[in-house]
């Protein structure tokens, strides 16, 4: 695996191997049994098609426009700003809040009972913040280390699980149900979120991103088989920690410790990767503003990382992780992220149609499928009303904020400063 593929996987799919994604995956495996495999394949295929749409190079030596440029060209600046803020901010604030707590518990329960879990969560957050204050080189190095550690643990457990387990439990015929398939596909679409941006360094092409996605999907499929070979589906579906349950069944205490390492490093990758992804998205937005507003004493990324960290630390201190509402908010954040991806698919189609690329034909059905997956996931959620309220509240708030910002900067721009030249810049992640 080349370094670029690792960087691509690490920065575009930090959520995919995080503890919450593993829980979502484990519960879906439990609910669907072997039937989850075709749903997983369908979700991966749809995500791969979305990558082809979003990262199609036109002309080939240049990357596609960044998400803001793409959305603003298709929908206008305020909806573009709204969708990006709604799809990014809740994800970067709420997912780390939840998963840092998971990592803290795992550390406390698996390795060091007398070390407070909350203190470990805070130290892990500080480690990631330190990387972002130090600069992109360390952010990238840290992400590769986090990713490799997580993958090594999961691969080892998967290999042993496949070799030592019996036949996978849960047959397709016994569980054949359209609702399970739809649920499995919508879950798979959520699990592969993250490919809307380009990774750091040179702009990655769609082939590299699809390769990273395919590698992740393959590991998921093997983990599905290993899980079903070692744990009954009902136990997986009912567990709040199905991945830890599977690891324990595969290798007993060493398996538990391996999964604990995967959870901690997966959390590090998630927080580091989401900080990077969101800062990249916000930097692309900032590049659209008149230049005088961008004069900062420190790097924008460092400032943003500090902002995320303070907000997450405040949420941790306020006990948000101890609230049942956090699970609903995280689900809502993922749906808003998928909504952003659906909008990007629609607007990418318009761009490709203007360029005469037949690929644009994929855009309407793909975007529609993503929207249907959002509706399905929301409608079948345990707390659908609370979930809907959260999503509407976020969308309304950021829409008003976007309108305000748009007016504010439009007013300032009348002074003739003009927009940053990066509106015409076609390299993502720059």
């Amino acid at each position: 695996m080349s370094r670029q593929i690792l960087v691509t996987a690490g920065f575009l799919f930090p959520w995919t191997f995080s503890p919450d994604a593993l829980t979502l995956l484990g519960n879906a495996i439990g609910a669907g049994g072997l039937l989850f495999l075709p749903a997983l394949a369908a979700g991966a295929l749809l995500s791969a098609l979305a990558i082809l749409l979003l990262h199609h190079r036109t002309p080939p030596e240049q990357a596609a426009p960044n998400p803001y440029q793409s959305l603003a060209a298709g929908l206008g600046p305020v909806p573009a700003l709204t969708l990006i803020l709604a799809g990014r901010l809740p994800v970067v604030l709420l997912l780390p809040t939840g998963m840092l707590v998971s990592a803290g518990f795992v550390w406390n329960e698996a390795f060091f009972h007398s070390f407070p879990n909350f203190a470990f969560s805070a130290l892990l957050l500080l480690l990631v913040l330190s990387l972002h204050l130090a600069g992109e080189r360390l952010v990238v190095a840290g992400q590769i280390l986090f990713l490799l550690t997580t993958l090594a643990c999961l691969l080892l457990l998967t290999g042993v699980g496949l070799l030592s387990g019996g036949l996978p439990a849960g047959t397709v015929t016994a569980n054949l149900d359209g609702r399970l398939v739809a649920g499995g596909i919508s879950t798979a679409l959520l699990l592969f979120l993250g490919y809307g941006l380009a990774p750091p360094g040179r702009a990655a092409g769609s082939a590299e991103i699809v390769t990273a996605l395919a590698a992740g999907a393959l590991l998921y499929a093997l983990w599905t088989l290993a899980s079903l070979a070692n744990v009954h589906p009902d136990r997986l579906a009912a567990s709040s920690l199905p991945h830890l349950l599977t690891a324990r069944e595969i290798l007993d205490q060493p398996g538990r410790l391996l999964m604990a390492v995967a959870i901690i490093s997966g959390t590090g990758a998630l927080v580091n990767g989401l900080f990077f992804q969101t800062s990249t998205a916000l930097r692309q937005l900032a590049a659209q503003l008149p230049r005088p507003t961008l004069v900062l004493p420190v790097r924008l990324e460092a400032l943003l990382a500090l902002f995320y960290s303070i907000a997450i630390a405040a949420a941790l201190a306020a006990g948000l992780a101890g609230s049942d509402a956090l699970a609903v908010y995280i689900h809502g954040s993922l749906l808003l992220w998928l909504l952003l991806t659906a909008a990007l698919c629609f607007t990418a189609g318009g761009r490709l149609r203007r360029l005469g690329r037949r690929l644009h034909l994929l855009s309407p059905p793909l975007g529609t499928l993503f929207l249907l997956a959002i509706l399905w996931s929301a409608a079948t959620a345990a707390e659908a009303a609370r979930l809907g309220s959260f999503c509407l509240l976020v969308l309304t708030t950021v829409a008003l904020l976007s309108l305000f910002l748009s007016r504010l900067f439009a007013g300032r721009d009348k002074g003739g400063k003009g927009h940053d030249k990066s509106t015409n810049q076609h390299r993502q992640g720059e």
Partner: protein
Amino acid sequence: MSRILAVWILALSLGIAAPVFAATVSTMDKDELRAQLGAENLVVLDVRQGRDWSTSEYKIQGAVRVEGGDLSITDGYDKGTRLVLYCA
């Protein structure tokens, strides 16, 4: 570099100082509880919420989960029942 160092020192200080602020309540250690598990007049109430419950491996067998922090469930027990609240 000095800023990063300062952030780390602040965090470590907070981590070390945190237990000082913990309130003193009547507690029972795990060995004491283990010895009493199964007793007729003992009920363990798992009052952990959200992630505190869902991401912890430790779930006491037979414990009654109190969802949403609603302790009205305790009204249903006899006065002689010893209630153990498991919160962390």
